[in-house]
């Protein structure tokens, strides 16, 4: 037995010549808020579909102790999943969806769904087609969160929502799902919005897992240094992962203390240590060389 809800080892997935996932390995324990970050086309959706058995990936994969390819039916009865193309039937009223879910999902609680929906502005008699996009997503979250499960997988759930709807969505998620036991894996490319929500980060770039770290460890491993213009050259010479400007225009750089060319001690004295934020780190680790000549 293992304590991990998900164990993936060397997952590889190709569409013809294109490699969607390239030897991805990771393990996800309980009680976490995992962010799956990547640009469009980085492999986020492919990975999530593989996790729920909708795409066949090579390698070893165990989700809730099950093999998603062979035991997909059993697996889908035990986890909450909102795909990126999630749609609720437009003709249905919300209370009809509750009835539908009760019939489909053995672990679904209609009572809990109604309680969760009370927190939203969605009424039980509302028709899906009359709801705003933000309300539909909140209703969807309320429905899947009413499944008694240990794992929730959300693929770009807030894409296309306005700021108030996104905030409402995350509030519902944090309040009603994250209890220290259950885990959620949430993919997004709107990194700045989820940074404080996450306990851990998986970063995908062109199918490869370029970072798998807890936010707590991130503060230890990556050092951001704000410096005066006079130090810019010395900082640049120490091979930072990324150089950028803070709000206000002060120069800053991020160093990886784990890398083979981590900066010598004196470099860290050239400026003031600040918190490396996830957006900057994301840019540093997934940045593609602009207009790079194709290597064919």
């Amino acid at each position: 037995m293992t304590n991990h809800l998900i164990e993936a080892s060397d997952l590889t997935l190709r569409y013809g010549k294109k490699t969607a996932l390239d030897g991805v390995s990771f393990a996800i324990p309980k009680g976490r808020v995992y962010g799956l970050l990547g640009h469009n086309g980085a492999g986020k959706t492919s990975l999530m579909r593989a996790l729920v058995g909708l795409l066949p990936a090579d390698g070893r994969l165990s989700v809730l102790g099950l093999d998603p390819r062979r035991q997909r039916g059993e697996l889908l009865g035990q986890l909450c999943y909102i795909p990126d193309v999630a749609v609720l039937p437009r003709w249905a009223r919300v209370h009809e969806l509750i009835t539908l879910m009760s019939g489909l999902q053995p672990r679904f609680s209609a009572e809990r769904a109604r309680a969760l929906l009370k927190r939203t502005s969605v009424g039980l008699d509302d028709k899906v087609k009359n709801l705003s996009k933000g309300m539909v997503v909140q209703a969807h979250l309320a429905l899947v969160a009413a499944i008694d499960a240990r794992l929730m997988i959300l693929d770009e759930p807030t894409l296309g929502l306005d700021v108030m709807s996104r905030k409402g969505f995350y509030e519902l998620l944090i309040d009603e799902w994250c209890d220290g036991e259950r885990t959620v894996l949430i993919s997004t490319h709107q990194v700045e919005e989820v940074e404080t929500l996450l306990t851990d980060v998986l970063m995908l770039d062109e199918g490869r897992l370029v970072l798998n770290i807890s936010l707590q460890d991130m503060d230890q491993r990556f050092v951001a240094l704000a410096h005066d213009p006079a130090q810019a050259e010395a900082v640049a010479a120490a091979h930072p992962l990324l150089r950028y400007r803070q709000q206000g225009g002060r120069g800053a750089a991020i160093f990886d203390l784990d890398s083979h060319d981590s900066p010598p001690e004196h470099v860290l004295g050239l400026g003031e240590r600040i918190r490396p934020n996830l957006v900057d780190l994301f840019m540093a680790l997934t940045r593609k060389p602009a207009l790079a000549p194709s290597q064919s």
Partner: protein
Amino acid sequence: MQQSWNDSAPIYQQLADRLAVQLLDGAPPEGDALPSVRQLAGQYLINPLTVSRALQALVDKGLVESRRGQGMYVTAGARERLRRAERARFLEREWPTLRARLARLGIAAADLDWKEQQ
């Protein structure tokens, strides 16, 4: 969309500082309970682990204490301890900068308005 966090310190530290400022203002007062981890997580949109770390930082400073099964409570004397720590920090870190600026501008103590605004 969220409360703004800056990049001066880790998020848990910033949350701890923010809660400490509220304690200094008497919210909540000594002996009273702090909001639960889940309430704080929902309010600030921060994951519960980070909220717990922030609360632990306040415990380490002796400002709040954990009562088994009941959550976190503001300790007796927390405000005074906090005030002393803030005073020390002001005198050590902020005052030298401020004094240098006053000197540069030629402002003496008598030039300053010491009456408290209502």
